[in-house]
Structure formats: structure tokens, C-alpha cells
């Protein structure tokens, strides 16, 4: 179990080592819930495809999750329990 926790922690840290992913995660953390469109509006300096990649990575390690909408522009991305724990660890 300890090795599982260590591996998860390593995955989380790797995901947040990427500056873009870190920015995307911090932006979602601020509001807790954001649509993909709001994210691209808030992070104008980052390309939409890079945001998509970061979202996939963050979702992959469990820091965020998504609720799909009828049109993907309004998919909601929100912080998970692991994301909230990571926020405290990052402070």
C-alpha cells in the first residue's frame, strides 16, 4: 500500500512539474469548477491544444474530473478529493 501511495504521489508531482499543467490546475483550483471555454479565456497565453493535453494529464492522475456537456466547449472540469489534498500540499 505504501508503494501505491508513493507511486501516486510521484504521478501527481510529475503531472504538476509541467508548467502549463500547473497553471491549468491552479486556475481550476481557484474556481473549483470551470468550463473548457472559461479555461481558455482565463489562460489566453496558452494554446487550446496545450490546455487540452494538460486537462487529460490532470484527469489521468486524478487531480480533476469532468462532467461532459452536450458541446465539449462547455464540459465542466472540477477539482477532485485528490486535487483538494494536492492544493494543501502545494501551499
Amino acid at each position, binding site marked *: 500500500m505504501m508503494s501505491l501511495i508513493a507511486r501516486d504521489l510521484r504521478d501527481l508531482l510529475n503531472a504538476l512539474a509541467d508548467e502549463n499543467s500547473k497553471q491549468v490546475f491552479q486556475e481550476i483550483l481557484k474556481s*473549483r469548477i470551470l*468550463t473548457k471555454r472559461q479555461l481558455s479565456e482565463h489562460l489566453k497565453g496558452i494554446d487550446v491544444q496545450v490546455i487540452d493535453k494538460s486537462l487529460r494529464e490532470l484527469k489521468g492522475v486524478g487531480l480533476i474530473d469532468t*462532467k461532459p456537456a*452536450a458541446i465539449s*466547449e*462547455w464540459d465542466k472540469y*472540477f477539482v477532485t*478529493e485528490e486535487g*483538494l489534498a494536492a492544493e494543501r500540499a502545494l501551499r
Partner: protein
Amino acid sequence: MNDVKAGLILSTLFTLIIVLIELFFRSKSNLRYFFTVSCCLYFIIMTIGNCASTLAAASVVNAVIKDQGYAGYVWFWYSLIGVFGFEVIIQNINVTFLNQGVLTLSTWINKAADAAAASIIRYAADSDVDEKQKIAETLVKKAGAQLQTYALQTLGANSYNQLATIMNSNPGIDPHLFLALALAEHDPKKARAIIKAK
């Protein structure tokens, strides 16, 4: 009602207030999304802790003031010292097994609070998507050809043009639903007002 019972009731009320404030700041969500199993569990954990420390505080308070003839609202002090005492306990008690630190009490409480806040956030996200989807679908039915005008007015020319670019580059998108969703997301109150007016 005796003083201890009154103290326990007041401690439960204090717990409710503390839990609501804590979860409000952690989840940044509306109170209507707070009715989840994890939230109830967190409230029960905190209530048990606060009531236990209130009982402990009662014997301390009795020893210090009541036996000296104090006849005021002693149950208030049971509760106040109990609830704040539990906060001190949370911060300072470590659970160890074979001299190895397993988890501190604050870690357990934080885990329960995170689980509760995450359940609120998930519930809020789910409900919000469903709600906006319903608004958008009704808007498409009711606003009809005027939808573009409403969208342009509400979103402004810049946002509208950005959306038009996305619609033009994705022929699979239903333009009416797309604009209705944009309107519902941008200004749900106005979207509801349009529906009501039709």
C-alpha cells in the same frame, strides 16, 4: 433539561456552523449542493468529536467553577470549551502503531473534509451541466430565429464572433444549441428571462 444535555445540543449547533463554514470555503459552492452522504459523514464525525470533548469539558468546568458556587449558564462553557478543545485535540493527537506514526487526527479529519468538499463540487458540476442543458434546450424551442439576436446582445460582438468561428470550423455543431448553451452559461438569469417572456 440538565446542563450537560444543553451543552451537547449547543455543541451540535456549533459543529453545524463550523462544518458549513469549513465546507463552504473548501468547495466554494452554493449551500444547496451540501446534501451529500460525505457531508453527512463529515458532520457526524465532527459532532461525535465535539460532543465527546464537551463531556470531557463538563467535568473540568464542574471542577473549576460550578463547585465554587457559580450558577450561570454553565452549559455554555461546557460547549464552548468542548468545541474549541476538540480543535486543539485535532491539531495535537497522533495515532501511532509500533512506534510508527500512522496518521495524525488532523490528517483523518482533513481527509473527511476533502471527501465532503469534493462530493459537493461534483454534485454542483453535475447539476450545473444538467441545468444549463435544460435551459439551452428550452431556449432553442422558445427563442427560435431570434436566438442569434439574443446571443449577440448578451455575449457581445467579440464573444459572438469567436463562437461563430468555432461553429464555422465545426460543421457537426448544431448552431442553435451552441448559441443557446453559450447564452445559458454566460448569463443563466437572462436566459431564463427570455424563456419566461416567450
